[in-house]
């Protein structure tokens, strides 16, 4: 990390209060260089993915390309049935995100708008649960999922190896973080709002659904973005709780693909980049939400 040395020199330069231009330019040069270096692994993957295996095995990977094409992408996409795995991910992620937001907003409403004794304890249980490493609970969970018979609802007849099982654990695990963030957010809403409605005879459900929830839209949007990306990116739960390749979401299916095609790194590179595309789209489209969501937990937003 010699870069650190380079720039402290560049940025510590202006002793005068008015910023000196050359320092700014140096800073830009540094940042642009660092940003490019940061993207290098991805650009390298892209370059490898755009070259046919035959060419790289003959000329080596560090070589000038004869021809760049998207063939590996189409091959990875069609040969490994990626559409199917993307759909699997969708079947898991969409209900999981919606349910997490719904359930955690109800808990948050409860703990932030009403002064019951259990509030802090309840919130502690949720937040601490979310901070545990997944492996702490996986062994009994795996057994539990094998034990629970739900014939007719899932293909496997059990929670194990089913989208439902994954949805449940995602919701259970992620609601800890969301409950904490949303309860902070709801606490910042003026109490007069709900109080007036209560005096007018509105039910608690109405307070939640028609008054509080609509006001939480910014926080919910931020959390929805964050949850979509986290749940999409999940590798561990699917690895352990799904056994049939057919049922796998995209990230763990990619693991199979790489096992199958380990002799063709270019194809694996294409598969990996394809897998990353949806998260990149979500991120670029909803960058602000994502970043504010991430820091919502760390610094109340």
């Amino acid at each position, binding site marked *: *990390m010699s870069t*650190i040395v380079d720039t402290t020199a560049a940025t*510590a330069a202006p002793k005068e209060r008015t910023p000196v231009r050359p320092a700014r330019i140096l800073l830009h040069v540094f*940042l642009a260089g660092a*940003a490019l270096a*940061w993207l290098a*692994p*991805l650009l390298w993957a892209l370059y490898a993915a755009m070259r046919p295996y035959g060419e790289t095995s003959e000329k*080596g*990977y*560090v070589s000038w390309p004869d021809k760049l094409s998207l063939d590996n992408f189409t091959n990875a996409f069609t040969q490994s049935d990626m559409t199917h795995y993307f759909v699997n991910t969708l079947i898991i992620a969409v209900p999981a995100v919606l349910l997490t937001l719904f*359930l955690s907003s*109800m*808990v948050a*409403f409860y*703990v932030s*708008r009403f*002064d019951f004794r259990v509030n*802090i304890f309840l919130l*502690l*249980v*949720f937040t*601490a*649960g979310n*901070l*545990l*490493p*997944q*492996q*702490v609970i*996986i*062994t*009994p*969970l795996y*057994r*539990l999922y094998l034990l629970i018979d739900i014939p007719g609802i899932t293909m496997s007849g059990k929670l194990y190896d089913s989208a439902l099982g994954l949805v*449940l654990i995602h919701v*259970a695990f992620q609601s*800890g973080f969301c*409950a904490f963030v949303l309860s902070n957010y709801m*606490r910042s809403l003026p*109490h*007069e709002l709900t109080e007036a409605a209560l*005096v007018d005879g509105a039910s*608690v459900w109405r307070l939640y659904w028609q008054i509080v929830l609509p006001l939480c839209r910014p926080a919910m949007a931020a959390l929805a973005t*964050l949850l979509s990306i*986290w749940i999409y*990116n999940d*590798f561990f739960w699917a690895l352990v709780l799904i056994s049939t390749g057919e049922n796998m979401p995209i*990230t763990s299916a990619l693991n199979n693909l*790489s096992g199958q095609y380990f002799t063709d*790194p270019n194809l694996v590179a294409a598969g*990996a980049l394809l*897998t990353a595309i949806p*998260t*990149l789209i979500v991120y670029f489209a909803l960058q602000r939400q994502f970043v504010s969501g*991430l820091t919502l937990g*760390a*610094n*109340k937003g």
Partner: protein
Amino acid sequence: MTTTPTESPEAATPPPGSGPVTKTAQAAKVPQGHRRLLTRRDRLTLGLMAGLPTILHVALVWVTALASIALAFTTWDGIGFDSIKWVGLENFKELFTNNPQFWPAVQHNIIWFVALILIPTPLGLFLAVQLDKQIRFSRVYQTAFFLPVVMSLAVIGFVWQLIYNPDTGLINSLIGANEPGHYIDWIGDPDLNLWAILIAASWRHAGYMMILYLAGLKGVDPSLREASALDGANEWQTFKNVIFPTLRPTNTVVLVVTIIEALRAFDLVFVFNKGAEGTELLSILVTNNIIGESSRIGYGSAIAVVLLVISLAVIIPYLIATFRKERQA
């Protein structure tokens, strides 16, 4: 990969001049009024609203965590409940004295944490400080550094394999070590592979830290900086003596996030070499007991309990501090 919910004190404390006293008094009073107005039906609704999510969370997270503890004192092959046998501390004894992977795993988890806190964390802070200078294209730079955080750790594992692969990887191709006999086996060599993976992990972690610090820096009162400049402090002095101390709440979050990331580390290692020699981690040992051939549930649970104890040692004090601060506000 989860963020940690926290509260920075300056966010929890109402801004000066906004009449904190009346606000808290009100907040304490009003809910009581709420409670009196509740009908029986409302109480039932509220009970369900809090109850259902709690049941799901407690059943899947806390009951299974407790089950891990209970199973850690037994042996069980997983087939039928009658094969569960109480063995007391046997599993732990075997783990601590007889498992050649256990102590390396503990050591690697510690190295993971130390490496993340020493390299990508200061780097993230440094980048955040540079990007906080209201420069042009700040968002473009931010996006570049932040991009890895958005990607799945499994995908990151595959991307970095293209760099580390002994035959076809970028590094060996560049330095000419991709000929038989000259291989540098970044993934297989137990002296190298952990560090190779840690570089990939740091690549992601630095962007994450940068975003947390950028948010922290936004909360720094600009007048502090002005005052410091008026006193003739240079940039480094201002940072060291004025800005950095005000980042304390962010530092706490960063520390906790990093510890938890180090304890959770799994995906990258699994994709790289499934935690074979040189990259053992506690999380990998637990998982191997489930997806490996041997199904030793009691033994696997014992490893999980070690992980649980270390995690709780971090989580509990942190949450107590956080919630105490919140209550005071």
